[in-house]
């Protein structure tokens, strides 16, 4: 019994960390630009595709593939930012944002499907990460541990970035009061673009390192669109600790549900979501807007 619980806990934790890495960018974007970006998962998917291509066709190593995937995704996403996202930062109503970003997601799915076909693309792991690790009570894939380390590092580095750097100070000022920040001479458009790049880069990173848990295929963008949004809502837009808590909680709800009652699919996950949103409408650790 205890081992089962521990086992579930470990799986939940690694799944939760993937959710966190991907969702945190969305959360920061929502906190700062107030944009509901339903295409966020599509960028994670693009990252996965690029890494798969770099590893299998270009033959580069795993670490370099991650870097290339992140940079490549940012490069692909930037024109979209320039042409489309800029129009909906902060001002547009929610419905407009939903429609525009679903539209972007659909186009990305369609194009990915056309170019790469409907099959799942694997992202081969280096030998260091592909074997199991013996934890004494259970074998666990080394990759899961890697994912958890990635999650912790992401959270830590983001915290440093936001708490300790000039960029972070401006970011927080703009989140707290965008109009004021503008009048203080903070160039919000540049800040927004930088944040967008950060968000998309994090999504791509999560898409690559999480590919074992969320396999990369064209409908990835649609399949997990909702999950990432839910993490942000439950955590509270713009809150790093909130996103960590929400990712782990939702990872736990999902994993437990699938362990104990697999035939119910995502039932328990969404039940948990409804309960949490009702109890904490501004997120577990979110602030009122």
């Amino acid at each position, binding site marked *: 019994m205890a081992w089962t619980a521990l086992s579930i806990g470990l799986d939940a934790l690694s799944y939760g960390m993937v959710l966190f890495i991907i969702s945190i960018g969305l959360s920061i974007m929502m906190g700062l630009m107030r944009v509901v970006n339903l295409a966020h998962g599509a960028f994670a998917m693009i990252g996965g595709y690029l890494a798969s291509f770099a590893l299998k066709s270009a033959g580069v190593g795993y670490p370099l593939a991650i870097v290339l995937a992140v940079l490549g995704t940012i490069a692909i996403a930037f024109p979209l930012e320039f042409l489309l996202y800029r129009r909906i930062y902060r001002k547009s109503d929610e419905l407009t944002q939903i*429609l525009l970003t679903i539209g972007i997601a659909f186009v990305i799915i*369609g194009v990915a499907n056309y170019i790469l076909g409907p099959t799942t693309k694997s992202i081969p792991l280096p030998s260091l990460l592909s074997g199991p690790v013996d934890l004494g009570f259970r074998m666990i894939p080394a990759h899961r541990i890697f994912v958890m380390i990635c999650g912790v590092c992401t959270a830590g580095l983001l915290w440093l970035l936001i708490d300790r750097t000039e960029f972070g100070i401006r970011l927080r000022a703009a989140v707290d009061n965008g109009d004021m920040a503008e009048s203080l001479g903070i160039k919000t458009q540049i800040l927004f673009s930088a944040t967008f790049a950060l968000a998309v880069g994090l999504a791509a990173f999560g898409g690559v390192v999480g590919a074992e848990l969320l396999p990369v295929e*064209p409908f990835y963008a649609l399949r997990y669109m909702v999950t990432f949004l*839910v993490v942000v809502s439950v955590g509270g837009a713009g809150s790093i600790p909130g996103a960590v808590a929400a990712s782990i909680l939702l990872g736990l709800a999902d994993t437990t549900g699938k362990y104990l009652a697999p035939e*119910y699919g995502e039932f328990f996950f969404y039940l948990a979501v409804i309960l949490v949103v*009702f109890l904490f409408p501004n997120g577990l650790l979110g602030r009122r807007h």
Partner: protein
Amino acid sequence: MTDRIMVDGMSAPRFSVPLELRAVAITLALGALGYTLFPDDLAFLTRLISITLLVLSLDLVTGYCGVATLGHAAIYGVSAYVVGNACLAGHSDPLLLLLVGAVAGAVMGLVSGLLVTRFKGLPQLVLSIAVGQLIAALANKLSSLTGGSDGLSGISPGRLFGVYAFDMYGRTGYVFSVAVLMVVFVVLLRIVHSPFGLLCQAIKDDSLRARMIGARVYPRLVLMYGVSGVVGGIGGALNAINTGVVGLDSVGFERSAEALVMLVLGGAGSLWGALIGSIVFQVFEHYVSAANPFHWMTMVGALLIAVVLFAPKGLVSLGGLLAGRAASLLRRRP
């Protein structure tokens, strides 16, 4: 907003009758047009009408109440399943089944409304999705009631009025569906122009101001969700009655998202917009998506982006604009 322009003579009551007559005439004309254009594909048209009811239902909450939802298919799908099961249990009178669908839809609508309209913004959107996904997961699980991924099949409704059978050509089903759509549309026109409908629009515009004239916002929105549920439920019932099968796709996320796309394409906040959007979209889909379903996705995406950028009020506003231009051109002529 065409229906608003048409009703601008609101202060003169004699205009309210022609508005409804016009709706009757237009739906009948569209029905006849459909029959002449697709005489061999009435199944497509009945499906189109069923989805149109879902889009109208969505318009009531999204267009008239400002509730952004991505889970509306839950109402439609659950009603379809309930109707299917009622029929399999031996209650096969089509009108009774329609009623069953309406009631199931109302219940689903009220429950969704209680959950979804409690908050605004992101929590609202997420709740709408969660309700939809919850229902989808349940539908998958309760395969004894839904047939799981095989779908619930073998639904064969009895004769309409005890006379007209739902034949393989689908004529009965088509006429029945057109008639249902017509009645629903006319009733909805009344509702959106009633004080209740106006109050919902007022809440959408500015809910604090609405409170400050004494409105109880939450109960009103829940009630409108109930009305929307009735309409969506009737749509689901038509789906079950006409096709004889109900699949998991009828509760799915994609169905909800597509309904939203159709609504926005036509113009949210106008019943005419919902009607035009769902017809244009589905006819387009009928021709194009058969060719290549993956290009279809790209095209829907591009279409959505284009609508948001260039026609944020939907086709119905473009129509109104063109009509206005034409009228002013005519007027300029001596």
